[in-house]
């Protein structure tokens, strides 16, 4: 099974970007690219070729669910798993997000020390399914 190496993070908050980048690169040993908006992610994804996309739900302009929809419609995902990143915790909300086609949902606040393991687990599960 191939390994999770490249992660694209889409989040508009600079503080979250900084700590998530540290967590992904230094703790997880991944190569990461940070996009501050859904539009930027749509632009960058083809060049960066991530193994997994971590997508914030609530962003100004194009929010997480609409970004996912556009990525799907433009055929930019090609099987790449998308994980939502959200402060919403109600089970019903999580289920709704999964129904949009996300592989999983990670709740915020997150622990920068365990985020990479969580992503690896999700990645492994996604690979088992395919």
């Amino acid at each position, binding site marked *: 099974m191939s390994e999770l190496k490249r992660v694209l993070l889409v989040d508009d*908050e600079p*503080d*979250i970007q*900084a*700590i998530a980048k*540290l967590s992904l690169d*230094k*703790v997880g040993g991944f190569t990461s690219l940070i996009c501050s908006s859904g539009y930027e992610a749509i632009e960058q994804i083809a060049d960066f070729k991530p193994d997994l996309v971590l997508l914030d739900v*609530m962003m100004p302009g194009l929010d997480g669910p609409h970004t996912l929809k556009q990525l799907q419609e433009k055929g930019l995902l090609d099987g790449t798993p998308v994980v939502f990143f*959200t*402060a919403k*915790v109600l*089970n019903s909300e999580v289920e709704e997000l999964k129904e949009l086609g996300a592989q999983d949902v990670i709740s*915020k*606040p*997150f*622990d*920068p*020390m*365990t985020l990479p*393991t969580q992503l690896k*687990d999700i990645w492994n599960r996604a690979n088992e399914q395919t």
Partner: protein
Amino acid sequence: MSKHNVPEELQAEIQAIRDQYKERLVSDKSKLTSLLDGLSLTNANQRVDEIHLILHSISGSAGTFGFDKISEEARRIDEKLKESASQFGQDTIIKLISNDVTRFCQLLDRTSVHNASSSSESASTAKTLQKTNPSRSAHEGEVWLIEENEQLAAQFSKQLVNFNFKINTVTLKEALKLVDKGGWPDATIIDMDGHPFNATADFKTLFTTTEGAPKGLIMLSENDAFDQRIKAAKIRATSFLKKPINLSELVSHLEAVVNEEKSAQPRVMLIDDDKELCSLMKLELESQGMQVSILHDVRNIVSELNEFRPELLLLDMEMPEYSGIDIALLVRQNVQFESLPIVYLSAERNLDKQTEALLFDADDFLVKPISNERLISSIRSRVHRARNLEQLISRDGLTGLLKHATIKEHADRELMRARREKTALSIIMLDIDHFKRVNDTYGHSTGDTVIASLAALLRHRFRQTDIVGRYGGEEFLVILPNTQEQEAFKIVDRIRIAFSEMEFSADNQKFSCTLSAGCICSSHLPDQMDASELIETADKALYESKRNGRNQVSTQQ
């Protein structure tokens, strides 16, 4: 399995980002204040939306930077806001928001005070980063030991540190200086025997500062005569322990004090046919942090009670179809709710009628309209008493952990929940190595000290959501909801190491013990397995550790 060793360089980077985040909280606070300042009926919609966005964002981020309390509080208000938007008119919403958001801003303020005083501290590890929880006082989560004797001070703090208490050993003089800077900590232990505490010392005057008297107070003394004990009682000490101190006893008292502070909030179920009143009470109780569920259809009461497991039932006396007494008797027909506190709410002012109602299996009678303060304090005191009783019934006397039968019930319930919510449930079984040898060599009372010490370590190292029980003599069972095997393994392996480092003494001899553990996770096991089978599998993993030479943790994989 690698441990969470965080390199210094990384710690420094985390700290830098955290500092930056604190600045953001300060600017969020000013935004919230100015949004509140001009809040009126004409601009409420837009401003409430903006407040919602700020709170939502803080709720999702603050915890990551170690500000758990702020995160939780932002989430609570944000959710209350969402809920009230669909139920109330704008003037009620404005009132609710103004109170809550003002309090939240005060919390943010206290956070920046805390930060200013600790900005010179070196970067902490990721674990401390997660634990830091700045609110109320600058010393939260800390325990002060006021001990004038240096040797005793060193000895106590060395022993207590194993139990994850943040111990600060100080003299009385130093303590009073520190209080001025940030108030009293969550718990204070005072050795009454050293100099300034001579026979004539008036403790009340000694300890009453501008910040009030210390809370969570535990007094130690060689002298346990009435005069000494009454001195402790006069400054409202919660515990008095006679020296020489039994460590596990001190830890239990300390735990009771610290846990009281952060113990889970009461879960309350409301039954009242006045929907508007129910919603208002719900909001009010929730703003105090309580978890509240409204029972809409009284026919579902048994299943709803089983699902929500309230710690108190608040019941309207006069409802159109059934009276409060009918419902209370129906609830008591179910043996599992025999001890559930039931409180009637009623407009009935006739004392005789109130007394008559109480004959039917309820615990208290509150007359409507009732002030929020009275309602909240009645709920808190009832739940507090019920928890103490529950503790006596379902907990093991030596260890304070759940008894065999109770932990098995929890295992069944948590497994059902995990399957329903599609989350992972980990189960750990652990056992002290060669325990018979300890009993045979040092006697049973020393053996009991070892068991009680491990129990205290387990209570401390697991999260509040984990469930820890004494399964048998020296065997313990831990249930970890929403936890993958890897994570459970890491926690228990750290406990294994900490336990092996603890030193016990008996007959002037020092010795230490080790433990073996087995750790399994429901997500790696077939769905048809029930809780007993999962526990058996954990037991098998435990015996794998024993077979392989003990002092280790095995998993099923």
